[in-house]
């Protein structure tokens, strides 16, 4: 019952957030200089009739709130309007690009989880020793490399010098795409590996010093069991919280990596659309990123009592 109420409450908050985000996303276009009509009529000499016709055709003559309602109604039905530059439905334009970005994010996410967690765990279990220092220094150095520099170095070494991976394009079919995306996802993952690694290390170190860990050891549990069941299990909370915040950064950072590797993904599309004042596409992508961020964090929130049972008891828990 309480679980149901809590989840319902989270869902309400989620919908409210998305609604506010949609307002911001839609009306921000009125703050940006530039007129979509002049873009649509580019190359032609705009006669007043033509301008009026295009304006009416795209519904730009309506008052802003009416335009918003039209847009929102469409969005709720999966219709994001038409792209001004491609003269196609926005959903189609995005649909073409989405698989690349999704694949990129999933591959990078996996790397972040595997490498970040491993680095953090290894460092924490060797706290103060050479290995810990090495991992920490390694992470700090990696964290200082901007992703476009990382991309160029990766291309130079693994694509050009060694020729192991392609340097450009996203390939055809699932396996080929995965192969093409190895270097881009490494480039994307680096900065986030550093963050996750450091959070994991400090969270683990904190738990390692807890008395219940000593109690578990005193009872004759193997070290591996103690680490798994009592140290790592209790460290998950902070790691997940940080990971949730990283999601937005990951989607945004993908645009840089996509540009560096010439991938036709959401990120490059966003940059291009902003450049060309293709408002419907920009709005759709931004809304997509916001939605992804909010949903991931809502899921983490809902999971919290499962991760830490004390959270279920509310603020009253000691």
């Amino acid at each position, binding site marked *: 019952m309480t679980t149901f109420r809590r989840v319902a409450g989270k869902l309400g908050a989620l919908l409210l957030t998305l609604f506010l985000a949609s307002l911001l996303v839609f009306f921000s276009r009125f703050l940006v200089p530039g007129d979509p009509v002049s873009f649509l009529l580019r190359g032609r000499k705009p006669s007043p009739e033509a301008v009026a016709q295009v304006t009416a055709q795209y519904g730009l003559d309506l008052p802003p709130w009416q335009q918003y309602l039209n847009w929102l109604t469409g969005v709720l039905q999966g219709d994001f309007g038409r792209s001004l530059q491609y003269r196609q439905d926005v959903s189609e334009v995005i649909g073409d690009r989405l698989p690349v970005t999704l694949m990129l994010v999933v591959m990078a996410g996996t790397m972040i989880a595997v490498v970040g967690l491993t680095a953090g765990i290894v460092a924490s279990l060797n706290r103060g020793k050479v290995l810990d220092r090495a991992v920490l220094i390694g992470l700090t150095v990696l964290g200082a490399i901007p992703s476009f520099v990382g991309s160029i170095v990766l291309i130079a070494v693994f694509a050009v010098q060694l020729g192991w991976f392609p340097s450009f394009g996203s390939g055809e079919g699932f396996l080929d795409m995965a192969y093409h995306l190895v270097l881009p996802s490494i480039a994307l993952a680096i900065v986030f590996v550093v963050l996750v690694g450091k959070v994991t290390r400090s969270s683990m170190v904190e738990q390692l010093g807890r008395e*219940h860990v000593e109690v578990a*050891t*005193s009872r004759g549990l193997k070290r591996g069991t103690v680490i798994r069941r009592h140290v790592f299990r209790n460290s998950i909370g902070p790691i997940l919280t940080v990971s949730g915040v990283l999601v937005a950064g990951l989607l945004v950072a993908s645009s840089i990596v996509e540009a560096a590797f010439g991938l036709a993904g959401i990120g490059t599309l966003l940059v291009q659309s902003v450049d060309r004042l293709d408002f419907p596409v920009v709005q759709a992508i931004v809304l997509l990123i916001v939605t992804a961020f909010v949903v991931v964090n809502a899921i983490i929130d809902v999971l919290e009592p499962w991760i830490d049972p004390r959270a279920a008891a509310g603020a009253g828990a000691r």
Partner: protein
Amino acid sequence: MTLLDISELTLDLPNGKRLLDGISLTVAEGETVGLVGESGSGKSLTARSVLGLLPSRATMGGSVQLLDQSVLDASRSELLALRRTRASMIFQDPRAGINPMRTVGDHLTETMRLCEGRSAADAKAVAISLMEAVRLPRPEEHMNQYPHELSGGMLQRVMIAGALTSSPRLLICDEPTTALDVTTQAEIIGVLAEQRASRGMGMLFITHDLNLAASICDRVYVMSAGRVEEQGDARQVFSNPQAAYTKRLVAATPTIVVARDSAATADQGADASATTSDAVPSTADAAASASASATPAPVEAMLSASGISKTYVRRGKEPVRAVIDASIEIPRGGALGVVGESGSGKSTFARMIVGLEQADTGDIRIAGRERTSVPSSRVERLEHARSVQMVFQDPYLSLDPRITAGKAIEDAMRLHRNLSTTDARARVIELLEQVGLGDVHAQARPRTLSGGQRQRVAIARALAIEPDVLVMDEATSALDVSVQAQVLSLVEEIRRERGLTVLFISHDLAVVRRLCDETVVMKTGEIVERGRTIELLGNPQHPYTRLLIDSVPRPEWNLEAVAAEASELEDPVAQN
């Protein structure tokens, strides 16, 4: 037969610091052996060495034999076997010692399932029977509960049950009741004694509490600075201590035992306050007798709180009535003790008097001025602070680590008065000297001071403003007994010299007895009994007061005589 034989155990850290210096002790089957000492004495380290739980870079010397198996030379798998079958350990704080993210059932069955390879159902059955053995009320239900759903006392029972799953031959208890209330402590000690007897286990019992050690142990070892100072029959050691350190420890330990001729003691107590507080001799006495007979005091009370109530409203839960219609009165220069267990509302009461919390109803007056409401403006806060100052429980937390002791005191002073730098400095030194510190300590940061020194700084800071009333909330609970004795003597001295009015909040009847003329007992928000401390201890009226007094561990013999003799040897204030 000998279960545990530690001989000439040494432990050195890489930086050359020697933490254990030639410890030798034995525990036989069915025997309860006490390991007594203050913080830093090495008693916990000695106990942990039995299970091979040692600092990773320490160098060990000597030997630890557990059932004829050497612990220090044991391989990793031998060590696991040893922990799984021969000895178990119970830790101080059950709330820290049981993983908060796993269920009680998981804690209990974990080793049986993962180490002994028993089936889940089998392990559960054993866990439930053990929970019954340690008298947990609803074993089936507790299996699926999380630690935060149980009280501290119940959790300590879970910890005990968990330690017994392996049927150990030796049970090591590291301050198992220090984090618990005194009535809960008595119950836990009962459970431990019962299990030890029925299983014929040996028990190594670590504690800082002499009375507790004396009341349950057959033999004791007194440790200090990594060495065994004295050992022998518990009664012998405490009633006739040989080593200077033991004598000091016995002298410093406050007791609630009221001598047979309680009248004599009472007189003595009254004498002390009457003869030495020249400024206000008659007031204290008159008021003490006045409020003892529960008639309005003829003299103006320094602190009077009447009909104070506080209820916390919690969303979706029952409201908590933290303080219910509590009234106290302290005459100028008096000292009142408020005694209660955790959750009794004593700290909330103190916080309302200090102005950190708003009372729902009631009236608080300090030196005749209205002090009920929480001050909201800067001027009001300063006014309130001049009326009443508080000394908190943990000096490690109540002093800013980056501010030197002198500066902390100076800052408090300058907040209230315009002083030139030289005047302020001079006053700081004066205050520090008053609390038994010197100008060398003015430059010290809290990190470099000991616990007792820190609490002295906290007291000096509170006194810097020259408040009407000093509230001490468990101000000696975090300190070792010898340090506690020093701080208590200091407060007594300041009371004598300056006629300071003190409200002393504590869970410890013995400490209150030492310091306070009068005492009130609080239970779940209400004051259930009040009176002169000695009368209250000697002849308690309310059943709860009786329970509190009966729960305080007490050896059959009287510590009083020894304490009196030993206290002459040593002036606790003089040493740091």
